[in-house]
C-alpha cells in the first residue's frame, strides 16, 4: 500500500498505540480522584502537559487538551467571540480556512457577528496589508491558518502577528493542524494568542488535540462542568489519548529535526516530475509551501475517477480536503486562488509523511501517468 493521504489522517505510530493501551489498562483512574489511582493518572497528565509545553516552548499551564482540530478551532473562535463580544463583534479570517473555522464564523453570524473573509492571491496566500485594511474598531479576533490543508501554502503568520502587536485588543488565532512538525512556528515570536494542533495528523489518535491559550486570555467555555483543563474545557480528561498525543508530538518533532530535508527533497522531486506532464497544472506554490503537500489539477479529468483508478493499484490520494470533499464540484480554496472552474473542479492532493519513501513517489508518478494516459482515451 502506498498511502499518500496524510493530510486527511495518518497511520497511528505503533509506539503511540502501545502507550495508549498501557495507559488505558493501567492508569484508568480519574485524575481528580483523591486516591492513589487518581494520583497516578493526574501525575501522568501533568507530565504530558509539561512535555507538550516544552515542545511548543510555552508554559504547561497554557495547554488545553481537546478532542482535535475542529474542537480547537471552535473553542478558540467561539470562546473569544462569546467572552469578548462587548468589546466588538467583528472577526477577520481568510477565504481558504478549514471548514471548522469558516463554519464556526458562519455560526457566529447568527448571533450578530460580522465576519470578514480576506482574499488570497493565486498562490493561496493572504496579504498582511489586507489584514491591516480589514481591521476596524470592533475587531476582536483574527484567525489565520499556518499551512493550507489543500494546497500547502504557508501563510505569513509571523508578519501578521507583528502587525497585530500594534492592536493589543485583537486576539490572534492560528490553525496549526497541518503545520505542526512540518513548518516551524514559535508562539512567542509570532505573537500568537491561540493555536490549534490535532493528534491524528501526526500519527497520534483521532479524538485528540490541544489548543494553546496564552496566559491570561479568557475564553467562554463550550463545555461547562467539573472545571477540568483550567475551567476552559470540563469533562474527565482523556488520559490515554492525551499521552498518545504528546508522545506523537515528541516523535514527530524528532523526525522533523532529522528528516525534514528528505521530505523537502521528495516534494521537489515530485513537483518536478509532475510539471513534465502536460496534462497537469500544479497548484502548490513553488515558494513558501509546506514540505508534505503537493496539489495539482488535471483539467478535463474527473478527480474521483483518477482516485479510484489509482486505488486499484493500491495507491491512496485524495481530491480536496476530506472535510470538504463531500460538497460537490469545485474546491473553494482553488476558486479563492482565482483558478478556472476546470482547474478547481479537477484537483488532486498528494500528502506525504516522514514515512514516505522515494520508491513510493516514483511508483506513484509512474502509475499516475499510466492512469491518465488510459483515461484520456475515454475522457480526454
Amino acid at each position, binding site marked *: 500500500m502506498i498511502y499518500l493521504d496524510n493530510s486527511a489522517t495518518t497511520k497511528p505510530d505503533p509506539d503511540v498505540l502501545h502507550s495508549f493501551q498501557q495507559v488505558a489498562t493501567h492508569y484508568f483512574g480519574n485524575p481528580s480522584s483523591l486516591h492513589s489511582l487518581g*494520583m497516578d493518572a493526574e501525575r501522568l497528565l501533568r*507530565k*504530558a502537559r509539561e*512535555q507538550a509545553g516544552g515542545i511548543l516552548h510555552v508554559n504547561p499551564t497554557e495547554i488545553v487538551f481537546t478532542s482535535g482540530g475542529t474542537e480547537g478551532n471552535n473553542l478558540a473562535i467561539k470562546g473569544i467571540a462569546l467572552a469578548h463580544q462587548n468589546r466588538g463583534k467583528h472577526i477577520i479570517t481568510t477565504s481558504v480556512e478549514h471548514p471548522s473555522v469558516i463554519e464556526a464564523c458562519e455560526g457566529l453570524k447568527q448571533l450578530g457577528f460580522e465576519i470578514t473573509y480576506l482574499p488570497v492571491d493565486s498562490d493561496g496566500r493572504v496579504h498582511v496589508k489586507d489584514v491591516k485594511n480589514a481591521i476596524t474598531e470592533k475587531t476582536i479576533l483574527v484567525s489565520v491558518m499556518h499551512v493550507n490543508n489543500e494546497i500547502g501554502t504557508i501563510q505569513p503568520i509571523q508578519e501578521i502577528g507583528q502587525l497585530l502587536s500594534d492592536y493589543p485588543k485583537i486576539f490572534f488565532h492560528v490553525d496549526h493542524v497541518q503545520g505542526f512538525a512540518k513548518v516551524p512556528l514559535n508562539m512567542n515570536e509570532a505573537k500568537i494568542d491561540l493555536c490549534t494542533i490535532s493528534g491524528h495528523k501526526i500519527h497520534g489518535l483521532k479524538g485528540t488535540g490541544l489548543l494553546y491559550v496564552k496566559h491570561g486570555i479568557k475564553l467562554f467555555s463550550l463545555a461547562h462542568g467539573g472545571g477540568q483543563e483550567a475551567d476552559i474545557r470540563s469533562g474527565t480528561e482523556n488520559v490515554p489519548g492525551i499521552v498518545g498525543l504528546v508522545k506523537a508530538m515528541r516523535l514527530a518533532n524528532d523526525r522533523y529535526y532529522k528528516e525534514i530535508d528528505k521530505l523537502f527533497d521528495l516534494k521537489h522531486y515530485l513537483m518536478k516530475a509532475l510539471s513534465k506532464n502536460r496534462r497537469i497544472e500544479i497548484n502548490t506554490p513553488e515558494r513558501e509551501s509546506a514540505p508534505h503537500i503537493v496539489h495539482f489539477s488535471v483539467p478535463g479529468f474527473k478527480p474521483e475517477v483518477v482516485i479510484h483508478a489509482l486505488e486499484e493499484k493500491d495507491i491512496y490520494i485524495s481530491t480536496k480536503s476530506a472535510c470538504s470533499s463531500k460538497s460537490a464540484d469545485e474546491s473553494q480554496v482553488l476558486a479563492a486562488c482565482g483558478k478556472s472552474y476546470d482547474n478547481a473542479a479537477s484537483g488532486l492532493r498528494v500528502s506525504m509523511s516522514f514515512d514516505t519513501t522515494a520508491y513510493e513517489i516514483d511508483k506513484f508518478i509512474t502509475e499516475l501517468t499510466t492512469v491518465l494516459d488510459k483515461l484520456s482515451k475515454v475522457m480526454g
Partner: protein
Amino acid sequence: MQYDHIVIRYGELSLKGRNRKLFTTQLQQNVISAIREFPNTRVQKKRDRMYIVLNGENPEPIMERCRYIFGIQSLSLAIKVENDEEKIKENALALLKQANPTTFKVTTRRSFKDFPIGSQQFNQVLGGYLLVNTENITVDVHNPDLEIVVDIREDATYLTSAKILGAGGLPVGSSGKSLLLLSGGIDSPVAGYQAMKRGVELEAIHFHSPPYTSERAKEKVLDLAEKLTYYGKSIKVHIIPFTALQQKIHREVPHGYSMTVMRRMMMRISEAVAQKENILSLITGESLGQVASQTMESMHAINAVTNYPVIRPLVAMNKDEIIAISQQINMYSISIRPYEDCCTVFVPRSPKTKPRLEKVEQFENAIDFSQDIEDILNNIETVTISADNQSSDQLDDLL
C-alpha cells in the same frame, strides 16, 4: 549548515588557581550527566573552555539543559571548521544567512599565530566577503544584531554567533554536601537551589504525616527534588514518618509551644540523618520574620538543639524575591499545588512568636521522646532521585 558543537565558557572557575582542575572535572561530570539522554554527544574539556560535540543531536534541548548547570558562565552554538580561509568564509556565510539579521559584525580571535592573516585584517576580509554575498545586511560594529565570533585555534576554527548566559556559580559537588529540609512550599526548594549555586551537593529530608498529609504532598516533594537534580547531581530524599511524634507533641505539649517543640524535633532528626550520611551542615528555607517559627526568638530556640551549621540562603530575602526565583527555576507551579504538609496540620491557633528557650526545655524535659525518635530513625524511607536517569520513571516511558 548545521551547528556541530556547543562551546561552554567557565565563569569564576577560570580564576581558580592550582585546584582549578578539580572544578573543571566536576563540571565535566555534571555536564555529561545532565545530557546523558543524548547518547551521541561527547564532552571535551580544554583548559579555558569545554566543548560538547553534538554528532548530529538536536542542539536546542541540549542548550536548554546546559543553561541550568552551575559553573557555566555562557554558552554558544558553534561550527567547527578547518583553519582554512575559504572554509571559514563559506561557513560564516551560511551561519549569517541562517540567522538573517539586519546588521552584523565580525570579531576574530587568533590564538593560533601560524594562521597567515592577522585578526584585524581577517575581520575586514571576512566582513567584506559576507557583505558582497548577502543582500540587505549591513555592518554595525557598535550595536550589531549578530556578532560572528571567529576563534582560530591550533586544532581548528570555531565559528559562533549568539551567546547565551549560563547559570554561573560553582559546579555542584565542588563544595561538599548539605542536608536540605524540604517541605514542599515555595521557600525550601529555592534555598536548595541557592546553595547549589555555590557548588553544594544536596540530600533532602521531608517530614511526612500520613494520613494527615496525603500521598500527593509527598509526590510534590519528590517532584521538587527531581527539578533540583536538573541543576546538579542526584538527590537522596529521606522521608521521615512523623505522624506518631506529631500526635504526641500535640497531645502533651501546651499548644502555644507545640510548634517550637515540633521544629526542634525536626532539627534533632535532621542532625541525626546528616550524621549518619556524613553530611556537615543543614539548609533551611527560613526567611527572617516570615512566620511564627522564623522570628529571631524562634530561630534561637529552635537552633539551640544542634551544633551543625544551619545555612539559611533566604534569611534576608523578601517573599516576592523568593517567588521570582521559584518561577525562574520552574519550581513555583509545583510548590503551589494545594496539598497540606506536616507544618500546616496540628497548627495551634496562636503559636508563640517569641518562645523562651528555658520554657521550651522545661516542657520537653517533662516528656520522654527518646523512644519516638529512635522509632523514626529506624523507619526512614529513602528515595534516590537520579540526575542522569530521569527517564527511568515508568510514566516517562509512556510519553
